[in-house]
């Protein structure tokens, strides 16, 4: 489906971008729209809600959802919607930052291992496979136990837990791509290893790896929530979705909305991320690109 676009400039560039074309589909539009809403909600939380996330009002505790409190109030009388908006800041930023760092390290390690092969490759893969042989949550729990609970611990834990996945994926992509004739052709032109890696191999495996990163962000939100649920994530009074579910779990019958809404938020966000990742993967196919004249 290659058309011809004559326009240049910012608008045309945006329209050609993968993200835009993913948003233009129904599935991608709904999922991307929801994610955008959550991100904007997190950013503009102080403007959107009149309440504070940490001021307790015990007389106001256990209010069911109403116009004043659309998602009710918790056991300390704090507005649940407010805490969800602020909690999105922790949950989303920790997951996204951790996965980004993990991606950078994983891609570098995987690309180098796949491209150079040999002893270096075997050394990297032994370490990477070692972390992969444990479930992510176990690796994360062990690391948090070493570093200590809190945002930093969660960040490092998520980083290491997903490193193996990105390293392996990049490595296998690079190993497949490096046998392509255009890599040999580049060597015939006198290109250096760095040139081949950064101009040919990494851009060509970027798509699948970025989508894997996107999908892993969804998992990372759950992992962050799980650590929060165990009380190992962001420490009170800083709200996080997992932490909110944790405190709501004991109050399931007294105030079911306290656990319901953050749980719903986690579920919807993860589903939206997965859906958007799917569409992105389809749109990243090079044949879907428009011709620039």
């Amino acid at each position, binding site marked *: 489906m290659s058309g011809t676009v004559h326009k240049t400039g910012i608008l045309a560039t945006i329209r050609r971008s993968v993200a835009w074309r993913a948003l233009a589909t129904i599935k991608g539009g709904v999922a991307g729209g929801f994610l955008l809403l959550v991100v904007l909600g997190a950013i503009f939380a102080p403007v959107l809600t009149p309440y504070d996330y940490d001021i307790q009002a015990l007389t106001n505790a256990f209010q069911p959802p109403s116009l004043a409190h659309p998602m009710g109030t918790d056991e300390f009388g704090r507005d649940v919607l407010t805490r969800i908006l602020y909690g999105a800041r922790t949950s989303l930023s920790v997951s996204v930052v951790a996965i980004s760092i993990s991606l950078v390290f994983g891609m570098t390690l995987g690309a180098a291992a796949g491209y150079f092969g040999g002893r270096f490759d075997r050394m990297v893969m032994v370490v990477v496979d070692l972390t992969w042989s444990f479930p992510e949550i176990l690796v994360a729990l062990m690391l948090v136990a070493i570093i200590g609970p809190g945002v930093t611990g969660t960040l490092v834990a998520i980083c290491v837990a997903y490193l193996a996945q990105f390293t392996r994926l990049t490595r296998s992509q690079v190993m497949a791509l490096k046998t392509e004739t255009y890599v040999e052709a580049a060597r015939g*032109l006198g290109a250096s290893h760095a040139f081949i890696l950064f101009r040919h191999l990494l851009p060509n495996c970027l798509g699948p790896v970025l989508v894997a990163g996107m999908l892993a962000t969804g998992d990372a939100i759950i992992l962050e929530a799980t650590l929060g649920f165990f009380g190992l994530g962001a420490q009170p009074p800083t709200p996080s979705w997992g932490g909110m579910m944790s405190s709501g779990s004991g109050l399931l019958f007294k105030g079911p909305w306290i656990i319901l809404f953050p749980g719903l938020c986690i579920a919807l966000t993860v589903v939206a991320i997965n859906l958007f990742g799917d569409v992105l993967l389809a749109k990243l196919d090079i044949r879907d690109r428009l*011709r620039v004249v």
Partner: protein
Amino acid sequence: MQMPADAVPVLELDGLVRTFTTGGGLLRKGRSMTAVSDVSLRVAAGDIVGVVGESGCGKSTLARLAMRLIDPSAGRVLFEGRDVTQDHGPRLRPLRKKLQMVFQDPYSSLDPRFTLRDCLLEPFAALGETAPPGRVEALLDQVGLDRSFAGAYPHQLSGGQRQRVGIARALAYRPEVVVLDEPTASLDVSIQAQIIALLQELHRTSGLTYLFISHDLGLVRYFCTRIVVMYLGSVVEEMADPDAVPRHPYTAALMGSSFVPDPTERAQIVPLEGEIPSPFALPPGCPFAPRCARVQDRCRASRPALTQTTGASKVACFNPVEA
């Protein structure tokens, strides 16, 4: 084109050997095969040397050895009299500018993410240079592609158009020698003719020297000034004149099996009998002996050396076909 005996050939391959090892593991020793065995070749400036042989005879390996893309197990590669066999990485860059290659498969030899402009600028970018202004357009003109193609991606082009890009890229440095590794093998016959015509024109206008790898003996006889016939990694015949009568039984069989359009001139095609010996276990004698109609006892015992016949032609056969 006849080369004076004392002239330094622009590209010289001297006793090249390349073995590959496959399989093998922690406890098992891998099997090794000789893809190219003791091949020597002198390419004079302006020559079009055709290397012809069946698939698997080592001609593509020879092209990569000549390009210094893979290291030889033994032997030397000389460019303009200078030994470049020990050069690697950045030290090969001066050679790269003078020796370029067009690859067989125009589909995988272009990065799918590169527009044609990127493809044609890559030779300069790879060496950290800036292309002279207008070079992309000049290259597109040279290979007969419309300038509006500069923004197109490879998947938007046909096979023939892609191969033109491959040729343009090889010309970007203004090289002296171009190795053509079956540049027409994956194209339709009508497109093949266009590409060959383009290569002929570039040979004439740019004073290029070609090392042309092909399995199509008819094409090689039409296009080349000198022919080297390979069989199982070795040169079996060198023909100084492409129209000469073949002396080696293998070359004769190859020519006998090429298709003649005129039915009245068609001779009975005698298919080659017998199996190609496994490259993992070459017989001691002539590698062609098991399939040869003119085989003698000594062919199976010892290997015939490449010896001069008439002029600069050579043949490796104890019992060659009479001229």
